[in-house]
C-alpha cells in the first residue's frame, strides 16, 4: 500500500496528537474535555477503519451481497461512543461544580490551590 493507502491511519494519528496536545497544553477545562473527545474519536476511526473491507457492502443480510464490512468494530465503537459521552457528561458536570466553587475553570489559577498543604 502507498502512503495514501494509509490515509485513514494518518488521520487517526494526527487527530490523536491534536487531541492529546489539547489535553496537556490547555488550561481551560472545557478545552481539555474537547481535547479528550478528539483523542477518543481518533480511536473510534481506528476501529472503524480496521473493519472496512474494500468493495464491501454494509453488513446487512440481503440478496446479492457477498462481501461486506466487518460489523464487530462498529458495535465496539458504538459502545465506546456511549462511554465517551458519559465521560464528557461527568467531566462537564465537574467543570460546572468547579466554576461554582472557585469562580474559574482555568487550571492555571487553580493549580496552587490543590497542592497547597495549608488551611
Amino acid at each position: 500500500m502507498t502512503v495514501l493507502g494509509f490515509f485513514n491511519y494518518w488521520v487517526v494519528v494526527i487527530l490523536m496528537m491534536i487531541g492529546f496536545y489539547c489535553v496537556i497544553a490547555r488550561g481551560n477545562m472545557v478545552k481539555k474535555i474537547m481535547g479528550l473527545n478528539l483523542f477518543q474519536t481518533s480511536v473510534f476511526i481506528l476501529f472503524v477503519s480496521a473493519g472496512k473491507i474494500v468493495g464491501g457492502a454494509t453488513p446487512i443480510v440481503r440478496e446479492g451481497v457477498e462481501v461486506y464490512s466487518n460489523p464487530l468494530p462498529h458495535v465496539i465503537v458504538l459502545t465506546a461512543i456511549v462511554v465517551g459521552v458519559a465521560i464528557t457528561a461527568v467531566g462537564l458536570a465537574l467543570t460546572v461544580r468547579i466554576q461554582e466553587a472557585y469562580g474559574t475553570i482555568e487550571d492555571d489559577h487553580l493549580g496552587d490551590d490543590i497542592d497547597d498543604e495549608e488551611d
Partner: protein
Amino acid sequence: MTLLEFMPFIVLIPLIASGIVALLPGRNLPWLVTLLAATASAVIAAVVLPAAISEPALSYPFGNWPPPFGIEYRVDAANAFVALLVSGMAAITLLWAPKSVASEIHGRLGTFYALFLLALAGLLGITLTGDAFNVFVFLEISSLATYTLIAYGKDRRALLAAFRYLIMGTVGATFLLIGIAFLYMVTGTLNMADLAERLPELRDNNAVRAALAFIIVGMGLKLALLPLHLWLPNAYAYAPNFVTVFLAGTATKVALYVMLRFIFTVFSPDYSFVVLPLSTVLMVLAVAGMFAGSWVAMFQIHLKRMLAYSSIAQVGYMVLGVSLATATGLTAAFLHLFNHALIKTALFMAIGCVMYRTGSAKLDDLRGLGRQMPWTLTAFALAGLSIIGVPTTAGFISKWYLVLASIEAGAWWLVVLVLITSLMAVYYIWRVIEAAWFSERPAGAAPVPEAPLALLVPTWLVVALNFYFGLDTRLTVGASMAAADALLGSGAGLP
C-alpha cells in the same frame, strides 16, 4: 444448582443492586441493601476461589454464545483471588461506612451508594471477564463511578482532584482501547484465551508490539506506577474517607491484575519480557516508585496524603515482584496485592476515625491525641507495623516473599533497597506515633472523645486480619501461588 454456578452473579448482584439502591429513599436503607449486595458477592467469590484453584478454569458464556464469539467470564485462581479481595474489602469497608458517611455527606444516600455499587461491579467485572473489550467497558464503568465518588468530598479541592483523575484516567483507558484495537486488527478476536492462542504466530508484527506498549502504559496510569501517579495523592486525600478506604484497598490492585493478565496470559511472558525490555523498565520504575513514594511520604503534613504517597511506594513493591518475571516474584506480587489492601484499609480507617472526631487529618492536629483516642491510634500503630513489615504481620509475609524472589533471581541488591524503603516507612509511621503520644496536646484544645464503636470495630477487625494473615498464611500464600501458576499457565516458559 450449586453456589458455584452463581459465579457471574459476583458482578451481576452489585450491578443490579445499584439500580435498585439509586431509587431507595432515606439514608439507612440504601446502605443496608448495598451491604447485603456486597456481602452476597463476597460469599460467592469465597465459594468460587477454592474451586478455581483446584480446577483448570471456570467459564460462563453470556447468553449461551460460546466463546470466542460470545463474551465469557473466565475464572482461574488469579482472578478468583482478586475478586475475593475486592468484594471482601467492599463488604468490610461498608461495615465501617455509616458513621463516616453521615459526617461527610448530607441528604439522601441512594445515589451515593448506587455509585459505590457501580464502582464495585466495574472492578469485579474487570476481574472476572475473559474478553479484552469487556475489560475496557468495565474499567470505564468503575472509573466513572469513582470520579463522582471522589467529587463527593467535603473540601472543594475534591472537585479538582476528581477532574484531574478523570482526565488522566480517561487517557489511560483510551490507551488500553488503542492496544485492544491493534490486537483486534491483527488477530480478529477479542477473547483473551483466543488471543493467547493466535498471538504466538505474530511475534514479529509491529502492531502487536505497539499493542503491548499501549496496554502497559494505559494500565500503568490506572495503577499509579511512578511517573504516572500524579492523580493518586489528591484523589485519595480529598475523597470522602469511606471512598478513600475503599479505593486504597481495591482500585489500583485491579489495575495491576489487568496488567498481569495481559503481560502473562494474553502475550505470554516469553513474548512480553523479550520484545520489550519490560523487566528492566518495570524494575527501574518500581524501585523509583518505592523511593520517591516513601521519600515524599516522609514529609507530608496531611496524613491522608502521606498514606497516598505510601501507596505509590507499595505499588512499587508489587511491580518489583512482577519485574523479576519468576513464579516466586509473581507470588510476592499477588501476596502484596492482598496484604497491602488489608494494611492500607486499616491505616485509612484509623485516620478516618481521627477525622470523624477532629475533622482534620493534619499531623499538627494529632498532637497528644494518643491518650484521648487510644483505641484508634493503637490501631493505626499496629497497622503501621504491618506496613513496615514487622514479623507476625501480613506486611512481613509479602516482603519476605519479595526478598526470597530477589535472592532467587540473584538480585541481592534489591533486598537492600527493600530494607531501606522499609526503614523510610518506619520514619513516616513513627512521626504519627510521636505526634500522638509523645507531644503535648496544644493548650486550650477541646478534649476529644474516643471514636464511636461503629467505626472502631471494623477498624480493629481489619487490624486483626493483618495479624491473622501474618500468622496463618495458608489462604494467602496458597492462593497467591495458585494465582501465579495460573498466570504463568500450562507450560508457558519463562525467559
